[in-house]
Every structure is written in structure tokens, then in C-alpha cells.
């Protein structure tokens, strides 16, 4: 209730005035003071029996009964429904037994009857009904407090567009200047020396020099991927602050450095026969 914007409340008040419906008590409370939801909750049962009580159709009464008010439907909606029902009941009564229209009901009855009831309406003249109230948290992760937000257009799209243009320009210029390698036709009988995997696998190839191929080629990378995947389930620390996460940050940095160092060694410090060389002395044995 507290999160209905003021302008909507105002609009609904105006609309209600135009329709001739009585002003809603809840609004007055809303606008006058910052009401606690509990207060409104208490208010509902007090108002509800009074409103339909005047429109004396007992068949209409039970659905509006107190059982529903505890069912999680916001108080102001219940109240509005009760009023509307009362108004309609009063209207029907006004037509059938004019004498039966209560003192409070008359004003609303005449007002409601001026509105032409649309065709193909449900019982009670509704053209729509409330199926369910979906709380925002059930669809999407939301925070209860208001967040500082900006419009995606232009604020985010402009940034993204600039990033894309910069990347595109860099790549275009780089591609115009630097040729992608194309060596001689593949020949199964002529093994180049050294034979190197693509750069992102050179860390693994480097491991091959230290471990059995099964360990270097399958176990270690498999473990690496597995560790990455389970990281969020193992790391129970809820904090996002670097100061609270020293352990995980150091673990990940070690992980990154491990691969980076291996890839760099494999790329630049391995020459003929995959022997250790210094790139500034023996040249670079590396193709992208």
C-alpha cells in the first residue's frame, strides 16, 4: 500500500470523484500520514461489514466475507471491492425495491446507474476480475528498498555502442595491418619442430613436460573446470567486499597466475624440441 505512487492515488481519487463513488478512507490515511500496513489491516474488517451491510443482498455478501481478508489480498483492494459491490448491490436494489435502498446506498446507487453497464460483463457487471496478486519477488529477484536506477536508453546503450565501435575500429585496423598466419599445406609426414597447440592450450602442453599425459591433459584441466563450476557452491561467504574475501581472491589469483605463467612459458620460452629457450636470445617459436 505504501508503494503506490502519489500521482496514481491522486488519479484514482479523481476518477472516483468523477464516478461519484465515495472517497476511499485508505487514501485519506495514505495521504495524511505515513500509515503502517498493520493499521490498514485493522481498518478493513471495520469498514467491510459496514459497506455491504447497507446493500442487503445476502448472496453477494459471503465472497466479501472476512475469510478472504486474511488471504494475502491487499487491504485496499478488498476495501475497494467491497465498496464496488456495495455500490452495485445498492444499484440493483434501487431498481427493484426502491424503498429498500439504505440511507448511505442511495447516493452511490444513483451514481452507478448513470454508467451504462457494458455488454458481456460478468456477474456484478465486472469486465475483469482479479485472478491473483503476483508478488514481484516471485518472478524476479527484487530488493524491497528503492534502487537508484537510470534509463537503459540512453545511459547504457550509449556506453555499449561506444564500446562496440571502439572494439570494431581496433579490430578492423589490426586486421588490415596484421595478416593471419597461413603456413604451407598440411603434411602428415613432416612434423614441424616444435609442434605447438593453440595458445590457450599451451599451459596444458607445458604441463605435459612435467606429468604423465593423463594427468596433464585430462585430470588437471578437468579438475580446473570442475573447481570453477562448484566455486559458488563451495564459497559460503556472502560478502562481496574484497576485504572479507581474501582467501577466495588469493585462490583465484593463484589459479589465474598458474595458467598465465604456464601459457606464457609454453608460448615464448619453448623452442625446438619444446626445450626451454629465451625469446630474446633464440627467437620466438610461436604462431597465433
Amino acid at each position, binding site marked *: 500500500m505504501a508503494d503506490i505512487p502519489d500521482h496514481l492515488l491522486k488519479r484514482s481519487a479523481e476518477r472516483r470523484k468523477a464516478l461519484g463513488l465515495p472517497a476511499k478512507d485508505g487514501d485519506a490515511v495514505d495521504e495524511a500520514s505515513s500509515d503502517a500496513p498493520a493499521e490498514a489491516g485493522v481498518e478493513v474488517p471495520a469498514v467491510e461489514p459496514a459497506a455491504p451491510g447497507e446493500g442487503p443482498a445476502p448472496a453477494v455478501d459471503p465472497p466479501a466475507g472476512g475469510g478472504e481478508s486474511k488471504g494475502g489480498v491487499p487491504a485496499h483492494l478488498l476495501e475497494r471491492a467491497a465498496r464496488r459491490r456495495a455500490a452495485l448491490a445498492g444499484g440493483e436494489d434501487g431498481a427493484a425495491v426502491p424503498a429498500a435502498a439504505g440511507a448511505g446506498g442511495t447516493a452511490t446507487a444513483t451514481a452507478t446507474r448513470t454508467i451504462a453497464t457494458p455488454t458481456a460483463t460478468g456477474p456484478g457487471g465486472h469486465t475483469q476480475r482479479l485472478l491473483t496478486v503476483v508478488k514481484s519477488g516471485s518472478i524476479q529477484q527484487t530488493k524491497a528498498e528503492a534502487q537508484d536506477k537510470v534509463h537503459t536508453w540512453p545511459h547504457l546503450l550509449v*556506453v555499449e555502442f561506444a564500446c562496440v565501435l571502439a572494439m570494431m575500429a581496433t579490430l578492423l585496423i589490426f586486421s588490415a595491418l596484421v595478416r593471419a598466419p*597461413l603456413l604451407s599445406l598440411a603434411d602428415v609426414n613432416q612434423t614441424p619442430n616444435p609442434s605447438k597447440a593453440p595458445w590457450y592450450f599451451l599451459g596444458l602442453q607445458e604441463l605435459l613436460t612435467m606429468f604423465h599425459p593423463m594427468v596433464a591433459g585430462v585430470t588437471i584441466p578437468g579438475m580446473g573446470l570442475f573447481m570453477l563450476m562448484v566455486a559458488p557452491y563451495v564459497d559460503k561467504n556472502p560478502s562481496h567486499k574484497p576485504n572479507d574475501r581474501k582467501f577466495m*581472491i588469493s585462490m583465484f589469483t593463484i589459479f589465474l597466475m598458474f595458467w598465465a605463467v604456464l601459457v606464457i612459458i609454453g608460448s615464448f620460452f619453448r623452442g625446438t624440441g619444446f626445450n626451454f629457450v629465451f625469446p630474446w636470445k633464440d627467437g620466438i617459436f610461436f604462431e597465433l
Partner: protein
Amino acid sequence: MANGTNGSNGKGGAGTKLLSRVKETGDKLGNSQVMTSIFRPGSVFRKGYTDSPRNRSYVIMNNVLYHLHPVKVKRHAVKVSYTLCLGGLSFFLFILLTVTGIFLMFFYRPTTAQAWSDIQHIETAVYFGSLVRNMHRWAAHLMVLSVFLHMSRVFYHGAYKAPREFNWVIGVILLTLTLLLSFTGYLLPWDQLALWAVTVGTNMMGYTPVFGSQVRFVLLGSKEISGDTLLRWYVLHVLMFPFVTVIFMAVHFWRVRKDGGISGPL
């Protein structure tokens, strides 16, 4: 002076008439069934754009490409210094690779007899062929790098934590798929670099315990790297891995929104 005013008056009359004609025609075209069927009712292409909160929302709501984003995002999410655009750039590189890759597919046949000479043909005889091939290759390396850096960024921000654990797992799968895409593409030029890099790579996978030789056979389509391998990796590279990647990317992007947008500031 008087003459001048007269002249300009006459011109102005003709000008406004022309302007109104143009405007009328524009309106007629804009309100035609074709245009109204293309652009949704709130689209800024139909009703024009003036800067207002409502129109800013309409820009996002009425465009399928921008619909990837919510209408509003957290203010800190806009900062380049937070994300470094790495995820977005990875996605952009994927699109760029798709476009350049489709171009290359027109001129490439995955057979041992033709593959290498087709690449040479692309380099020497096709308009922009060399440029497009270079872009494809460099963008591929760059994408491996940017996906990797994106992962690091996410880790250092602790953005893999609840409720984003599963999206992190999808991200790791996407990293693996990126490596596979790059690796399968590596063989296609069918030069010495390709052949022996892939030999080294697949030999490693052959050491998978228990069914190593089977894994290797499935990968190569034969006992050793051959024309069957080339065809197999070509299909994996241009069809299967992109297809799977797109599916995982869709889930990845969808989960970003469902998990409450990108993670909060530190």
C-alpha cells in the same frame, strides 16, 4: 529591402507548401499498413522521438534487440569501470565471428584437397577476403581472451554468489564452448600450423582414462587426422557449437535479468 522581403515571402510560401506536402506524404507513409505492421504502436519510428521518460522506455520496449535489457538499470551498472564491457564485448565478438564466418563459408570447402587452396583463394582473389579472414582469426583469439577476462571480472566482484551461482556455471560452460569453437576452427585452414596444433591437442584428449582411444576416434572420425576429421570439425565449428552456444547464451542473458541485473557495487 522590400523586394527582398517579397522574394523571401514568395519563396516561403512555396517552401511551406512543399514542406507540408512532404510532411503529408511522410504521414501517409508512416501511417500506412506496412509501416504500422512493422513498428509497434509505441515505437519511436512511428510517433517520433522527443526526450521524455516515457519515450526512453518505449525505445527499449519496442525494439527486439534492445529488449535484451530492462527499461531501467541500476546506475552503477552503467559504469564502464565496473564491467569493462567484457561480457557485452564477448557477445559482440560472437556476432562479428558469425558474420565474418558466414562470409568465409561461401568460399571454403572442407576437404583435404581444397581447404588450403580455398583459403589462399580467399586471401588473394576474393574482395575483402584477406581482411575478413584476418578479422575472423583475430576476433576469435580476442573472444577467448575477453570471455576469460569476463570470468575473472565476475569472480573478483564476487558476482557468482547467490542468487547467481547457476549463471556462473553456465558461464563456465560458455567458456568451454568458446575454447571448443576456437579449437575446431583452428584445423580448418589445413596448413602445417593447423594440423600439428590439433594433433598435439587431440593426442592429449586421447589420454582420457578407460575410453581414451574411443574419445580420440570420435573426435577425429578416424585413427589419425584426415579428411574425415576436417569435415567433422567443420560441421562442429560452423553448426553444432554455435548452435549450442546460442542456447546457453540465451539462458545466460535471461538469468542475468532474472537474478536481479548485474551484481551490486562492492
